[in-house]
């Protein structure tokens, strides 16, 4: 498990370095993700200890953004004033997003892809 964690921290550090030095618009961890993905595609398999750590992270991913989301206590007055409008925007927007991506797939699928 430590070996998997070391690999992740290595790619994360590489990503942060590249982000700082070359690509400031890209978050370091995303560059790390892209590098790790490229490395996995080259070696054509996932090392078992990396898989162990990655699966642990995926399973409890939600926990990791709780501390940042709790910061919502700092926005309570604004959210009280605009909460319903914001909820309406998110609701319409996500329905439109799902509809748009589904509609494009339906439009572009070859006949043999259809059930």
């Amino acid at each position, binding site marked *: 498990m430590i070996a998997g*964690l070391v690999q*992740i921290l290595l*790619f*994360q550090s590489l990503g942060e370095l590249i982000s700082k030095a070359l690509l400031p618009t*890209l*978050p*370091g*961890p*995303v560059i*790390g*993700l*892209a590098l*790790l*993905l490229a490395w*996995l*595609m080259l070696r054509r398999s*996932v090392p078992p200890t*990396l898989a162990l750590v*990655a699966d642990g*992270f995926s399973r*409890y*991913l*939600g*926990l*990791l*953004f*709780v*501390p*940042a*989301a*709790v*910061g*919502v*206590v*700092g926005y309570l007055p604004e959210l009280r004033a*605009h909460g319903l*409008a*914001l*909820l309406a*925007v*998110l*609701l*319409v*927007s*996500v*329905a*439109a*997003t*799902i*509809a748009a*991506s*589904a*509609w*494009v*797939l*339906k439009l*572009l*699928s070859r006949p043999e892809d*259809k*059930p």
Partner: protein
Amino acid sequence: MTESASILDVWVYLSGSPLFALFITLGAYQLGLLAYQRSGHSPLANPVAIAVLLVAGVIQALDMPYATYFTGAQFVHFLLGSATVALAVPIYRGLGAIRGRALPLLLSLSAGGAVSIVSALGIAWWLGIERKLALPMLAKSVTAPIAMGIADRVGASPTLTAVYAVITGVLGSILARWVLDWLGMKSAWQRGFAIGVGAHGIGTSRAFGISAECGAYASLAMGAHGVLGAFLIPALYRLAP
């Protein structure tokens, strides 16, 4: 020393150390997971939403400033970067699902991503919602760990981005069925991909509950939306007037 004074001493010690913030964060998330399991995996009983409400309630009740809470909870927050890098593994596993469908999938993702941004900012502008509250909607359909990195790069609040992303995931998971039925979508892979584009991780775990194929495509969509969003959203934001 009286008993109440010693309890106060213990409290002062605990609330000043990271232990208390870590305890309520993990405890609240555990309660959220229990509620999610008890509800038969209802999207409305989202463990993150429950944990955020519980922790926010506790620190408000104790009059604990958010900054004090975060000093302790930052150890959990710090892992977000590593978790983002680790997303390479599920994305790599999902690559097999592309199988000659790369172009329709890429166009579908681009359409979904564009509609997500334009519809959210457009309606927010039309409703007169101020910029500070509207800008974090840019990345709301991107998986939260990556969305918060994007928010950071465009000067939007990572907190509101995470909150919008969770609400979007919950709403998308609930609405997807009706939207997709209404459009007459039948094949599992198309349904799964559309759910992943709109409702990222929360939609993906819902899609895995429908079928493995549906989940695999949702997972692929979530990963691709994350990576593409991280490349394009800050770049487009710089070009925008």
